[in-house]
């Protein structure tokens, strides 16, 4: 009886089978020998796993390379983008800064103007004068002296009478 190891396919025969150059005798042995079949299957399963994983990894790498290209494009446009951003910042920032630093001056100016307008426009003397005038007018209106025209009926003119007659006839 042959030893167990010699009953199996040699390494060269197994490799030939894997390469696709196996003899028909080797192929026949493989169909009957579970141990040799396991050797072949183990390699094929390992290669299947390796191929699928490495391809998936490469595809992921291929996906990463697109951003790389866009990164290159980004690198090209980056200085332009930064320049535009800086210009925008300056355009907005400088007027804002100036406005903010001018604001207290305007307030000071306004504060300077405000007392003048208050003192000239709403002085107590003028208010007193106005009140005196209003009181005088009021007193004049309350007087009992009748007006010369109070009891005198106005005379109707010819034109007024004519208009009244015409309106009646309608």
């Amino acid at each position, binding site marked *: 009886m042959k030893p167990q190891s010699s009953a199996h396919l040699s390494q060269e025969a197994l490799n030939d089978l894997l390469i696709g150059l196996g003899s028909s005798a080797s192929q026949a042995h493989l169909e009957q020998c579970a141990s040799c079949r396991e*050797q072949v299957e183990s390699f094929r399963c390992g290669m299947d796993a390796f191929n699928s994983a490495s391809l998936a990894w490469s595809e992921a790498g291929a996906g990463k390379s697109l951003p790389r290209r866009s990164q290159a494009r980004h690198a090209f446009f980056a200085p332009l983008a930064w320049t535009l951003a800086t210009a925008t910042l300056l355009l907005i920032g400088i007027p804002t800064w100036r406005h903010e630093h001018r604001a207290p001056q305007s307030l000071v100016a306004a504060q300077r103007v405000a007392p003048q307008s208050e003192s000239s426009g709403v002085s107590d003397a003028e208010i007193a004068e106005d009140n005196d005038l209003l009181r005088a007018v009021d007193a004049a209106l309350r007087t009992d002296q009748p007006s010369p025209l109070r009891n005198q009926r106005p005379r109707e003119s010819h034109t007024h009478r004519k208009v009244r007659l015409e309106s009646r006839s309608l």
Partner: protein
Amino acid sequence: MNAIATDIFDFDAKPIGAIESGSTERSRPISEMDDIDALVKIHRARLLRFVLYSTGDADLAETVAQETLLKAYNSRASFRGESSVKTWLTGIAINTIRDHLRSNRYRFWRQVRSTAIDVQEMSSFIAADGLNPEGLLLAREQVKHIAQALEKLSRNQKTVFLMKFSEEMTVAEISEILAMPVKTVRTHLHRALKSVRSQLGGRP
């Protein structure tokens, strides 16, 4: 000259000329070559993987994959459809790798050290569909072992191994693309298989 010892990407090697003469495999529709987007979509990841594991350099793989696709698209008129697009592209990729090695030899080797493949990361990309946690773990271990075994192979062994077991080319196709005798291809494959299978825990 010992053909096995000759590096496929040898600096003095002539460009592979057997690419366009093709193989026995019928090509894909010619229209695929007329659309750069389709070309990229169908072949980029596969090319990237091939170059990545052939050279061990992720950055170089990106460059070579892009150049290969661009060269293929620009010279699509010379593609007669006698071989598959995949085979044709692989041949162009091999020539492109050789060009890069010739021009950037030292820089390339520096890059190899700095941008080597992250085996741990790559093995995490395995699909968990239909696998229980134990099976997934086992598959990841197998992926790691194969990747580590590939790193130990010579460049020729690695390239031939990938062409056979990842690109699923026949020995005749590999022989034709690499302008290498079938016997030499077979020897490379045997040596590579021995190394990879032992790493996978195969029977000694």
